């Protein structure tokens, strides 16, 4: 096997990347003990790094790691539990031995459904998935979610305890429950992506998780290929990521969407996203992520023709609003309508929305309001709205951008 010739460390790292979640899912599926599975696997990886440089890489590194991890898990269960409970635990770990030698079954989807179970707090689902499926450590996840590592670590431990002690099963739900449960998995993946997406590009300390989120979305597409919403989510993420490079200029300055150069968007990603969206629409079951992806797709119109198709965009926002009833969607719809009906009409729409408390500290609301006020000639009010938007923004590049806009208002 070609792996034998490779550097043992590289092999271990390659296996870790490819198989981490698969091994965790397999080890924890019966015991529901994620922490024990992760500990055993991390010991197995340490053993590999000590053993492989001397003895050479095994022919099947994945099976080697699984065997060692299972032995470690059984040892640890014997050490830490009473005789009776340890017997149960050991039996559960040992029962999995049947699969030895053959291909390790892929239970990552079941693992993701356990992480995004309704009994788990919605805010910890994405971090939990990133840790269990991809092996990200608490520090990295905490950094992406703007949380202290200690607090993140504590919440992850608590969530794993809940899975184990409350008996949350590692199974893919049946047909009846699948739509709602699938949405929870997709929402968690999108949350991980959105954290990375809003990541200030100039802030190198904060970890960007878009690559990881894309990996998870691709994994769900691979394991649930007939779910249109899953395809829609991946399409949405690819469309957004295709524009990543054009969000900043060479000085790291923020470039708003309307001023981005469509020719610089990533064609391969857009092509893949469009194909996924076509595949999704063939199922004839529309959903939130397909609509959001379709909105991104509508912007492609500008890439082809140089002119955005605002009528189509407003229509899609209408449909999306019917699904989500979200004030953010309503805001974006009002802004799209402004392109057709003018700033004054849009300001009236925004006034109606301003009653929603959720928009009060939402930076894009104030930035949009400021733009519209400026267009309508209400300079003093525009200046005040920019002031609020600047105060709410955490990305220094966007803050600079808003400050420049504010400064450019006629006195």
């Amino acid at each position: 096997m070609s792996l034998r010739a490779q550097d043992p460390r590289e092999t271990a790292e390659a296996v870790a990347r490819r198989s981490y979640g698969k091994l965790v899912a397999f080890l924890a599926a019966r015991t529901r003990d994620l922490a024990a599975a992760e500990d055993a696997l991390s010991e197995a990886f340490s053993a590999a790094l000590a053993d492989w440089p001397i003895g050479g890489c095994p022919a099947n590194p994945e099976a080697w790691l699984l065997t060692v991890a299972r032995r470690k898990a059984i040892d640890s269960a014997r050490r830490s539990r009473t005789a009776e409970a340890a017997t149960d635990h050991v039996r559960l770990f040992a029962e999995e031995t049947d699969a030895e030698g053959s291909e390790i079954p892929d239970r990552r989807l079941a693992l993701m459904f356990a992480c995004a179970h309704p009994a788990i707090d919605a805010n910890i689902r994405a971090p939990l998935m990133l840790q269990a499926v991809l092996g990200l450590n608490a520090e990295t996840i905490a950094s992406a979610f703007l949380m202290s590592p200690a607090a993140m670590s504590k919440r992850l431990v608590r969530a794993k305890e809940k899975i184990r002690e409350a008996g949350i099963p590692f199974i893919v739900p049946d047909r009846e429950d699948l739509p709602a449960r699938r949405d929870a998995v997709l929402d968690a993946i999108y949350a991980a992506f959105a954290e990375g997406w809003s990541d200030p590009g100039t802030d190198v300390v904060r970890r960007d998780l878009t690559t990881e989120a894309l990996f998870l979305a691709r994994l769900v597409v691979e394991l649930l290929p007939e779910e249109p919403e899953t395809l829609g989510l991946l399409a949405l993420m690819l469309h957004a990521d295709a524009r990543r490079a054009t969000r900043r200029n060479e000085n790291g300055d923020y470039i708003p969407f309307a001023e981005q150069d469509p020719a610089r968007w990533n064609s391969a990603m857009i092509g893949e996203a469009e194909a996924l969206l076509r595949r999704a629409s063939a199922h004839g079951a529309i959903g939130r992520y397909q609509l959001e992806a379709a909105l991104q797709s509508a912007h492609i119109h500008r890439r082809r023709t140089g002119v955005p198709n605002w009528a189509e965009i407003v229509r899609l926002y209408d449909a999306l609003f019917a699904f989500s009833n979200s004030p953010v969607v309503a805001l974006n719809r009002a802004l799209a309508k402004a392109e057709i009906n003018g700033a004054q009409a849009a300001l009236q729409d925004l006034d109606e929305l301003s009653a929603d408390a959720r928009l009060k500290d939402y930076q894009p609301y104030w930035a949009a309001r400021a733009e519209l006020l400026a267009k309508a000639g209400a300079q003093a009010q525009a200046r005040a709205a920019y002031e609020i938007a600047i105060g709410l923004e955490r990305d220094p590049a966007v803050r600079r951008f808003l400050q420049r806009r504010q400064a450019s208002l006629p006195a």
Partner: protein
Amino acid sequence: MHYLLMIYSNEAAMMNRTKPEQEQMIAAYTAYTEALKKAGVLAGSNRLRPSTDATTVRIAGGKSQVLDGPYADTKEQLGGYYLIDVPDLDAALSWAARCPGATHGIMEVRPIWNMTSYP
């Protein structure tokens, strides 16, 4: 795994039910209990007298302190429970959702602490 399904409901609303409404509810609970038995998952169940019949006791400063009424004076009170034995939380939740208590109140599902797994 064993789970305790606790039925929390508004006692005042329960007391204000008409006779036919009460009969209907009792019939629903009877049918639910039968279904649990038939499925072979029922390990125990009881209805509790209202919280006005509750008494709390605690030892403070070496002396026992007895008070009339429930521990927490909330609108919803624990009114009864089912103890069931099912494979996992999903099964427990689906039984909890079928309980008439999920309609007229709130079901709290708690796993039983398995003492053998505690060192």
